[in-house]
């Protein structure tokens, strides 16, 4: 299965990258990540050029990695600065280094031609690093191809059936959506505005709202990696004012980074940033546990789906209906990035 190369992907949270060597595989490329003594995040190919030993199973010495097998030593640019037993360092003794940008609590790496890496093209999720918001977050490894997670997140009607009792209520599946695609910017936007909806426990317990709500879900997908769900929750009938802050509503910015690891595995980075009860630890704990449960419900379902797809004949004919309008748009943009571009391209 092809990947969209020459793109930025989230490899880790900044908090995961420190003075311990961290192994991540992104688009099939094994990486080792660490932080220099000056605090700069570094990503290098995770294979010693000598006998391919994983550098992530080695050790840091200052800002260099000393291979745990024979001692080949690499600096933060991937240049080999020491080989054992001889003075001459072979000209080809280096490992690839990857462009890295830390932004909005994520460590983004560029996979592809480094000459084409433009940090200004990385989409933003500013709520994750904003003192006006409190964030709970996690990462779930998925034993499924990344397209299944894209499909899952682009069609939230599944909340009603897979996540009932947490975030799903009947209105999610029953409310029509509007789907928009900006061809030039490569963005898919899906709006589902529920005027009069049951309040799911996820929001009832965290906001304290009793009774029915006006619930807006606005998805903004920046393929290939960043997914934003702007969630607005308010007592039923309360809408944003024509001007000024929307202070009678509760806002949750739900962020996913969908990073393909291998053809059949994916990193599912998830975060929930909220602008309410920001100092209430019990709300943080509740939202963390609830969203973790929801993510793991998805993980279980998508892992199962991966097994089904892996075992079926090629060219299985899917059926797409109205709820899939956004997912189809996301698939097409991803296919365009990869190089084909067919509508409704199969997995």
């Amino acid at each position: 299965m092809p990947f969209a190369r020459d793109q930025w992907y989230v490899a880790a949270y900044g908090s995961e990258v420190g003075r311990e060597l961290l192994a991540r595989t992104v688009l099939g490329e094994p990486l080792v990540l660490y932080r220099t003594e000056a605090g700069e995040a570094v990503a290098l190919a995770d294979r010693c050029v000598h006998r391919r030993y994983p550098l992530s199973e080695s050790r840091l010495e200052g800002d260099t990695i000393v291979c745990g097998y024979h001692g080949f030593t690499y600096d933060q640019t991937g240049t080999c600065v020491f080989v054992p037993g001889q003075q001459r360092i072979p000209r080809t003794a280096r490992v690839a280094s990857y462009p890295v940008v830390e932004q909005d609590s994520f460590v983004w790496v560029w996979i592809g031609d480094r000459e084409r890496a433009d940090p200004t093209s990385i989409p933003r999720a500013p709520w994750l690093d904003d003192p006006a918001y409190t964030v709970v977050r996690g990462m779930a490894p998925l034993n499924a191809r990344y397209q299944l997670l894209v499909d899952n997140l682009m069609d939230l009607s599944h909340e009603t059936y897979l996540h009932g009792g947490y975030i799903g209520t009947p209105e999610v599946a029953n409310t029509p959506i509007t789907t928009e695609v900006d061809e030039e910017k490569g963005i898919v936007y899906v709006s589902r505005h529920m005027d009069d909806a049951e309040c799911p426990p996820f929001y009832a317990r965290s906001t304290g709202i009793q009774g029915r709500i006006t619930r807006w879900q606005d998805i903004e997908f920046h393929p290939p990696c960043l997914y934003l769900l702007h969630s607005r929750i308010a007592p039923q009938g309360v809408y944003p004012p024509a001007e000024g802050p929307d202070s009678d509503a509760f806002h949750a910015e739900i962020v996913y980074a969908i990073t393909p690891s291998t053809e059949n595995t994916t990193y599912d980075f998830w975060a929930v940033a909220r602008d309410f009860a920001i100092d209430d630890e019990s709300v943080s704990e509740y939202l963390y546990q609830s969203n973790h449960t929801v993510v793991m419900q998805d993980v279980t379902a998508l892992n199962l789906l991966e097994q089904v797809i892996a075992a079926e004949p090629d060219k299985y004919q899917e059926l797409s209906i109205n709820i899939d309008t956004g997912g189809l748009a996301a698939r097409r943009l991803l296919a365009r990035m990869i190089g084909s571009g067919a509508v409704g391209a199969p997995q």
Partner: protein
Amino acid sequence: MNRPMLTGDRVYRIHWMPGTDILRGVCHCGAERTAEEPVELWEWLLAHPQGHQAPTASTPAPQRLAVPA
């Protein structure tokens, strides 16, 4: 029906018409078409300008609805 949110010059939209099973596709050129399933409608939209009649009247630019930030 949800209000348009994206404001670019080349935005394709598909509205699911409330109370129906009908989808309405709106091209950035102003051409519109309805369909009962999304694959066919995306194919028509993305074929722009093929099969898209020029709009008979200019349509006002959509108002961007503020997204809580």
